[in-house]
């Protein structure tokens, strides 16, 4: 059949969100990958500039459907830093609880998706069934399954009662048992091993070169975890380990995530045992003084980075989000080269992509024709000009 160009996406069952991977195939081997993004761009960053900080709390949450809380956490941290507010200790603990519950449900979800990508639908059904336990806990505490709307600027909106704590601990006992079982299955099921071992290799030096983040980097033996490297919320008080493996393959990414489930359970147990008493929110003014702030958190998929520039009004002047998926895409292109077509879905799934969050488009108002390439230098000059016109420092 010779060389064939196979379009994976924008509409394809392997991708949960529309993105295009044009794969050049030689038989069943992948020769080249061309990734095109921009199909689900929603313009959230721009939209945020026209909304107040309170309204933005709920918009930021909708950047991602799975790691929604990591984004809100970043946003509130940014605003609080410019305002100079210290949030109450109890609020910090509750935020950490939510961050970890979110990681739990994201990792269970990912395990199921990975199973589905290699045709293991039974695993998919079981993990999603267990994920419901986490979702129920989140719903019980916050009032919603996905967009928890838990953060306020200066703290959290809802308290965790004693009864909630008891139920959370019960849920953790159940999930620990289930995670134990999945660990057993993942490293012993022959067909999973056949599909995951030595597949999608990302060597440590390549992971560094392409700046991979999160579990993808940790599976390549890089100890990187924002929770440890730059502690936020209450991670400084909380004992936990950073999980790494050095198998560099999809199986390593499975193992890292399964073991991180145990770490999350450990953290949640600690938080529940040491929850401080006191207020959950400090009053914050509506107007934010002029300033700049960055914040990063360890979302379930990796480092999530936010930038905020305020101008003394009720609305932000500029907001910028870089989600972990965008950081992992160059590494993904490297992983895909030389693999089998059959491995493409699981390798793409192994970085736990969230296309909607990372998507971005580029509009150039010049003489460029559609599809024309613009080099980095020209883009840089364009952005300096753009900012200079608005009176910002370059």
């Amino acid at each position, binding site marked *: *059949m010779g060389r*064939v*160009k*196979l*379009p994976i996406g924008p509409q*394809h*069952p*392997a991708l949960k969100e529309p993105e295009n991977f044009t794969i050049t*195939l030689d038989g*069943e081997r992948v020769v080249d990958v061309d990734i095109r993004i921009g199909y689900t761009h929603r313009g959230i960053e721009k939209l945020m500039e026209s909304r107040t900080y309170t309204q933005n709390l709920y918009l930021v949450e909708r950047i991602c459907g799975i790691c929604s809380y990591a984004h809100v956490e970043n946003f509130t941290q940014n605003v609080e830093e410019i305002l100079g507010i210290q949030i109450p200790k109890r609020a910090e603990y509750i935020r950490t609880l939510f961050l970890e519950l979110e990681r739990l449900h994201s990792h269970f979800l990912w395990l199921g998706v990975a*199973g*589905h*990508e*290699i*045709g*293991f*639908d*039974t*695993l998919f*059904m*079981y993990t999603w*069934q267990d994920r419901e336990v986490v979702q129920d806990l989140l719903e019980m505490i916050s009032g919603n399954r996905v967009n928890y709307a838990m953060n306020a600027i200066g703290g959290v909106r809802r308290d965790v009662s004693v009864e909630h704590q008891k139920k959370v601990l019960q849920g953790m006992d159940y999930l620990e048992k289930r995670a134990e079982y999945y660990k057993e299955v993942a490293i012993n*099921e022959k*067909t*999973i091993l*056949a*599909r995951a071992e030595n597949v999608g290799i990302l060597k440590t030096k390549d992971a560094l070169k392409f700046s991979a983040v999160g579990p993808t980097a940790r599976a390549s033996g890089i100890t990187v975890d924002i929770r440890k490297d730059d502690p936020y919320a209450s991670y400084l008080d909380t004992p936990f380990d950073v999980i790494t493996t050095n198998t560099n393959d999809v199986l390593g990414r499975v193992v890292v995530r399964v073991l991180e489930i145990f770490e999350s359970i450990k953290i949640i147990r600690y938080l529940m045992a040491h929850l401080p008493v006191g207020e959950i929110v400090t009053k914050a003014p509506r107007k934010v003084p002029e300033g700049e702030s960055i914040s990063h958190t360890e979302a379930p998929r990796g480092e999530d980075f936010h930038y905020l520039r305020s101008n003394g009004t009720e609305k932000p002047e500029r907001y910028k989000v870089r989600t972990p998926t965008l950081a992992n895409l160059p590494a993904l292109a490297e992983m895909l080269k030389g693999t*089998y*077509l*059959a*491995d*493409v*879905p699981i390798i793409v799934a192994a970085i736990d992509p969230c296309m909607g969050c990372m998507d971005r488009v580029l509009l150039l108002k010049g003489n460029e024709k559609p599809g024309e390439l613009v080099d980095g230098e020209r883009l840089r000059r364009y952005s300096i000009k753009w900012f200079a016109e608005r009176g910002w420092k370059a």
Partner: protein
Amino acid sequence: MVCGKGVEGIDILLTLLYLFIFPGFLFLFAFSLFTEYLDRKIYARMQRRVGPPFLQPFADLVKLAAKEDVVPEKAEHFMFTAAPIIGLAAIFAAYLYLPIVSSTGLHSFNGDLVVVLYLLTIPTLALFLGGWYSGNVFGQKGGMRVASLLFSYEIPFFLALLTPALIEGSWKMADIVHFEISHPLEFIVSLLGFVIALIALQGKLERLPFDIPEAETEIVAGPLVEYSGRRLALFRLARDAEMVVGAGLLAVVFLAGPEPIVQLEPVYLSWIVGALVFLVKTLFVIFLLILMKSAVARIRTDQMISFAYKWLIPLALVQIFIAIMVRFLGGI
């Protein structure tokens, strides 16, 4: 047709009944849909889901048949249309040779086992042709996969199914069934062959872990990607019927099919009893097929080929060697 009152007239009537209603095409049609229901329901229950209602497969078929039928512009119209019909026809033809109600099928002759095996290869080829002529890159990729995997399961399937024939020394399914029922030990001797045939049948039916040609997450639906409406319905029916005929063939060759026969008057009563025995055995084989797909991931093309050549075919040869030894040493 006007029927006389003589014995001949009844025979014609019974033949027609056999051919079109029971255990002929209508029964196969109903049983295929029931099998699909069972497959989906048990699979769902294993995954702790509720599963489809009883008439769902039938409703799906009716819905598909009522849909607009599209032939893509790039597709080869004739082959694209012919492929599902050829596939279905081959399976229905193979079905008629299976001894279902008594130890002989509609027509029993020396070598009918080989004919059934041959007819069962045709749906795979039809799938390949359908995919290849659909003019879609996913369809062609799927067709290529069908063709490249063909030998990795056909060879062990043939070898395994010929074992009982070797032990008995006949290519006639009726003889094999008779022999098995009088020599129960034969089942134990050919147990290895049964397992190999089961795995190969799973590959033939393109079910997990061998559903490589239509791997949803890789190449969408493979050869079926451009099919819609009636043609897709035919392909789906062919897939279900193939499962019934394949499982039935295993039940006949390894588990003695409709035997032991109870002789009853009138003759159709003993037919019904025979068919029930056959059904139970077929459903047992189908249940094993469902179990096999429930707890595994899909493997890759290269892994399947190496699995077939490293394990299935050598083991099938060992089985044949055992069969020859048994026969050489004077039978069971």
